């Protein structure tokens, strides 16, 4: 936990300047925990860049995951080493696709905001505020017509 705190402090110190100029992160949200883990979703633009890791004070670990559909229609979570933001494109983390799994997360209420540090290949450490939302609201984009 000390390690995580140090990371958070460093990234706070770094602020929003420096290498993070090109990278824009929006719609950062975490589904309210219903078990020991929760998922962080967001959209990133301003690549090329790549997400390498993440950390937060409210969870023991943070892993980059992809949910994939198997041959029989099963859904599988797999840890992946990096997620690319293409130049001129966007990286979308959403339910059923990519997410950052927050392992061993604290009890969090809907409406709370948590601070998460994302480590990018080019932009370096970028700290974002993610809102805790109802699990059904993690997919709000899908309801947009």
């Amino acid at each position, binding site marked *: 936990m000390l390690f995580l705190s140090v990371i958070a402090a460093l990234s706070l110190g770094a602020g929003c300047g420096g290498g993070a100029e090109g990278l824009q992160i929006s719609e950062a949200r975490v*589904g309210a925990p219903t078990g020991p*883990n*929760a998922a962080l979703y967001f959209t990133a633009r301003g690549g090329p860049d790549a997400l390498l890791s993440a950390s937060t004070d409210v969870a023991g670990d943070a892993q980059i*995951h992809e949910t994939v559909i198997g041959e029989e*229609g*099963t859904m599988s979570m797999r840890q992946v080493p990096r997620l690319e933001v293409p130049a001129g494109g966007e990286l979308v983390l959403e*339910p*059923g696709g990519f997410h950052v799994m927050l392992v061993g997360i604290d009890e969090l209420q809907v409406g709370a905001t948590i601070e998460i540090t994302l480590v990018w290949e080019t932009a370096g450490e970028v700290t974002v505020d993610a809102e805790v939302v109802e699990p*059904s609201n*993690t997919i709000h984009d899908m309801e947009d017509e």
Partner: protein
Amino acid sequence: MFRRSVVLVAVVAVVLAACRPGVATGDLQGVVLETPQAKGSFVLTDTAGDAYDFGERTEGKLALLYFGYTECPDICPVHLAQIAEVLDQNAELARNTEVVFVSVDPDRDTFAEIREFLDHFDAGFVGLTGTHEELAAAQEAVGVPPARVFGEGDGYTVDHAGWVLAYAPDGLGYSIYPFGTRQSEWSNDLQALASIEPGG
């Protein structure tokens, strides 16, 4: 992103029941099965520690059946939250609906953890699990691929069927609900399915 056809093929391959003419399924917005599927029968243990006979306990009701695990943070909570939201807004529908969540992670999920997980959505949701053998039999009985553990150590994940099975009160499954089902589709279909009465 979601390939519905993959799921459809997997399910249709194990369809057991004969077609029952006269039931209108044209209003359904989920993935409608080519042939209605008879409700599979299995017995597992509920979160109170009692035997739960799925066929018997859901007789005459709309039954929604989903296999997952409590450490699943991505798709499992979304399915359950969507269903809870529909039932929250329709007390009569909720009374006639049995939502059954089966944990396919019996090595980690305790009854208390399954109960706590489901209470985040609806205290009325039924939570079940069993031995690996019992779970395999239950999944085979309802025609979903068996869940499989992936990885080693405490951090393993469980591959499992990504869709919700639905059985109308007449005991037949007309449609399934893959991940990606919209809230409006859930709302429409739960009401439509609940109106398919036994002997209708």
